[in-house]
C-alpha cells in the first residue's frame, strides 16, 4: 500500500518543488549585488539581511527537515527523553543574545566570513584556524546527509521508490546554490517556513480534534509506554534526568558553532538584527515542541511503523486528505533544501577562506574566492549525496552525533577570544585536541551513544559526552596556557 504512488500528493509536491526551484534561480537578482565578484555576496548574501530575513533564514536552517522527522520519531520511541530538543532550543537563545552580537561586530569590522577567520584574527594561529575550519567542514557533511534522509522519507511516503528522485532534487539544489549563493536559501526559507507553520498549526488543531483531544493523545502514549516498559514514559526516569539536562545544554552551546548557523549570523545587517532574533526565534521552538508531540499523536491514531522515522509521514497520510499530505511532504522536503544549501555554503566558505586562501593561493582575489567557494559547495553536496547512496544510513547518523561533539570543541577557540585574550593559542589547540580525542573515544567505546558515565563518591553519573569533552577542553586549555605563559611570557603578535 505504501508502494502505491499517490498522484494527488505527488502533484502538489511537484508544484511547490518547481516553485522553489524557480525562486532559487531568480534569487541571484534579489537584493542584487555582484554575486560572482565577492565572497561576501555569494557566501553571505551581501551582509545585508535584516530582522525578518534573518528570522526566516536562521529559523529555516536551524530547525531542519530532519528535525521534523527525527524528533517525533525519538519521542515516539522513548517518550519524554526525546523532548530534550525543547529545552535545548530555548536555552540556546540567551546564549545567542549574549555572544553572537559580539561575534558579529568582530567579523564585520574585520571582513571575516567564517568562524575560523575570527579565530585567526583573535589568536593569530594558523594551527587553530585550520583546526576550527576542518572541524566545521567535517561536522557539516553528515548533517547535510541527514537532510537527504529526511527528504528521502517523505518521497518514499508518496510511493516513489529508488534513489533517482533524491538525486534529481539534489542536483537542482546544487545548481541554484551554485548560481545564487546564500540568497537562494534565504528566499526559499520564506516559503518553507510559512508552509511548515501551516502544516504544524493544522496538525496540532486537527489531529487532536480527530483523536479526542490532547488528554486522549497523552493517555494513549502513556499506555503504550507502560506496555513497552524500559526507559520510556511520559516523564523521565531518575537515571535520565542528568543525560536530559546535559544533552540540552551541550546541544545548545554547540548549535551556533556550526557553519550553517554562523553563516546566518555573519550575513545579518547589524548586531541588533541578531539581538532581535534572539527574542523572535523562539517562535520556532514552540513549533518544534508541537512537532515533537506528533510522536504521541501517532499512538492515539494507532499508527504502526517499521522504522521510527516513518511516524510523521504515516500519521499525515492517515489523517490528512491527499492534497494536504502532499503539501506537508513538500514542506518537509523544501525544509531539507534550505539547511542543505546553507550548510554547503558554510562549508564552502570555510574551505575557501581557511584552506584555499591560507594554504594554496594567499593572493586570491575577491572574485577568485567566490568562484572557489561555488565549486567547493558543489563538491560538498556531491560528497553528502555519495555518502547516502553508497554507505549505510547508520553511518550518517553516527557521524552526525560525533559531529555535534566535535563542533562543540571549537567553542573555547571561537567564543573565549571575544571576551578575553588570556588564553594562548597553543593551549586552545591542545584543549580542542583533548576534547575531540576523549569525546570520540568515549562515544566510540560506548557503542556510539552520546553518553559518558563517571563514578564520584560511589555514585554513578551519566551525562552528555560532548559537555564532558568541553569541560576537559577548557581545563586543558587553561593549564596549557599557564604553562606556555611561564615558558614564553611574551606572546606572538596576533596577525590581523
Amino acid at each position, binding site marked *: 500500500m505504501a508502494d502505491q504512488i499517490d498522484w494527488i500528493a505527488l502533484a502538489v509536491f511537484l508544484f511547490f518543488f518547481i516553485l522553489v526551484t524557480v525562486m532559487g534561480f531568480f534569487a541571484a537578482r534579489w537584493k542584487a549585488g555582484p554575486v560572482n565578484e565577492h565572497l561576501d555576496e555569494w557566501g553571505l548574501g551581501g551582509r545585508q539581511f535584516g530582522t525578518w530575513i534573518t528570522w526566516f533564514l536562521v529559523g529555516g536552517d536551524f530547525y531542519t527537515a530532519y528535525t521534523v522527522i527525527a524528533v517525533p520519531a525519538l519521542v515516539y520511541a522513548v517518550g*519524554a527523553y526525546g*523532548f530534550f530538543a*525543547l*529545552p535545548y532550543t*530555548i*536555552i540556546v*537563545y*540567551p546564549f545567542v*543574545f*549574549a555572544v553572537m552580537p559580539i561575534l558579529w561586530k568582530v567579523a564585520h569590522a574585520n571582513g571575516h566570513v567564517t568562524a575560523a577567520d575570527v579565530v585567526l584574527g583573535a589568536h593569530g594561529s594558523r594551527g587553530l584556524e585550520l583546526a576550527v575550519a576542518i572541524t566545521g567542514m567535517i561536522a557539516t557533511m553528515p548533517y547535510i546527509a541527514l537532510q537527504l534522509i529526511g527528504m528521502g522519507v517523505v518521497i518514499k511516503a508518496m510511493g516513489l521508490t529508488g534513489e533517482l528522485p533524491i538525486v534529481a532534487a539534489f542536483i537542482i539544489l546544487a545548481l541554484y546554490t551554485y548560481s545564487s549563493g546564500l540568497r537562494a536559501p534565504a528566499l526559499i526559507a520564506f516559503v518553507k517556513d510559512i508552509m511548515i507553520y501551516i502544516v504544524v498549526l493544522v496538525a496540532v488543531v486537527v489531529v*487532536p480534534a480527530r483523536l479526542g*483531544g*490532547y*488528554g*486522549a*493523545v*497523552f493517555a494513549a502514549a502513556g499506555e503504550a509506554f507502560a506496555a513497552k516498559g524500559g526507559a520510556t514514559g*511520559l*516523564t*523521565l526516569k531518575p537515571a535520565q*534526568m*542528568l543525560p*536530559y*539536562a546535559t544533552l*540540552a*545544554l551541550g546541544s545548545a552551546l554547540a548549535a551556533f558553532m556550526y557553519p550553517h548557523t554562523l553563516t546566518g549570523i555573519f550575513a545579518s545587517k*547589524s*548586531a*541588533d538584527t541578531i*539581538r*532581535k532574533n*534572539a*527574542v*523572535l526565534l*523562539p*517562535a520556532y*521552538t*514552540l513549533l518544534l*515542541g508541537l512537532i515533537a*508531540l506528533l510522536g504521541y499523536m501517532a499512538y492515539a491514531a494507532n499508527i504502526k511503523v517499521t522504522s521510527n522515522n516513518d511516524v510523521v509521514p504515516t500519521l499525515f497520510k492517515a489523517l490528512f486528505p491527499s492534497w494536504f499530505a502532499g503539501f506537508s511532504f513538500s514542506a518537509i522536503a523544501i525544509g531539507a533544501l534550505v539547511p542543505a544549501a546553507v550548510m554547503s555554503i558554510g562549508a564552502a566558505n570555510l574551505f575557501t577562506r581557511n584552506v584555499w586562501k591560507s594554504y594554496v593561493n594567499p593572493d586570491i582575489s575577491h572574485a577568485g574566492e567566490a568562484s572557489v567557494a561555488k565549486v567547493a559547495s558543489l563538491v560538498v553536496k556531491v560528497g553528502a549525496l555519495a555518502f547516502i547512496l553508497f554507505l549505510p544510513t547508520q553511518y550518517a547518523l553516527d557521524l552526525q552525533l560525533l559531529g555535534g561533539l566535535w563542533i562543540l570543541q571549537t567553542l573555547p577557540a571561537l567564543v573565549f577570544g571575544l571576551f578575553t585574550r588570556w588564553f594562548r593559542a597553543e593551549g586552545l589547540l591542545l584543549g580542542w585536541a583533548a576534547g575531540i580525542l576523549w569525546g570520540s573515544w568515549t562515544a566510540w567505546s560506548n557503542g556510539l551513544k552520546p553518553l559518558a558515565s563517571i563514578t564520584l563518591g560511589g555514585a554513578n553519573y551519566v551525562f552528555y559526552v560532548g559537555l564532558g569533552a568541553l569541560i576537559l577542553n577548557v581545563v586543558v586549555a587553561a593549564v596549557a596556557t599557564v604553562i606556555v605563559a611561564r615558558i614564553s611570557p611574551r606572546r606572538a603578535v596576533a596577525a590581523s
Partner: protein
Amino acid sequence: MWILLLLPYIGLLWVPFYNFEEPALFGFPFFYWYQLAWVPISSLLIWLVYRSRTPDAAP
C-alpha cells in the same frame, strides 16, 4: 538585568523541578506545558534585557 538571562537555564536544567505529570493543563502533563511555557517566558526575559541595554552607537 543581564542576570535575567540565567533564569531559563535554572528553570529548565534542574529537571527534578518539573519531572511529573500533575497538574495537567488542557490535557498536557506538567512536564510538557511547563517546558512549553518557558518559550514565551524566555523570549520576554531576553526582550527585557534588550530594552534595558544602551543601544549601539549609530554606524
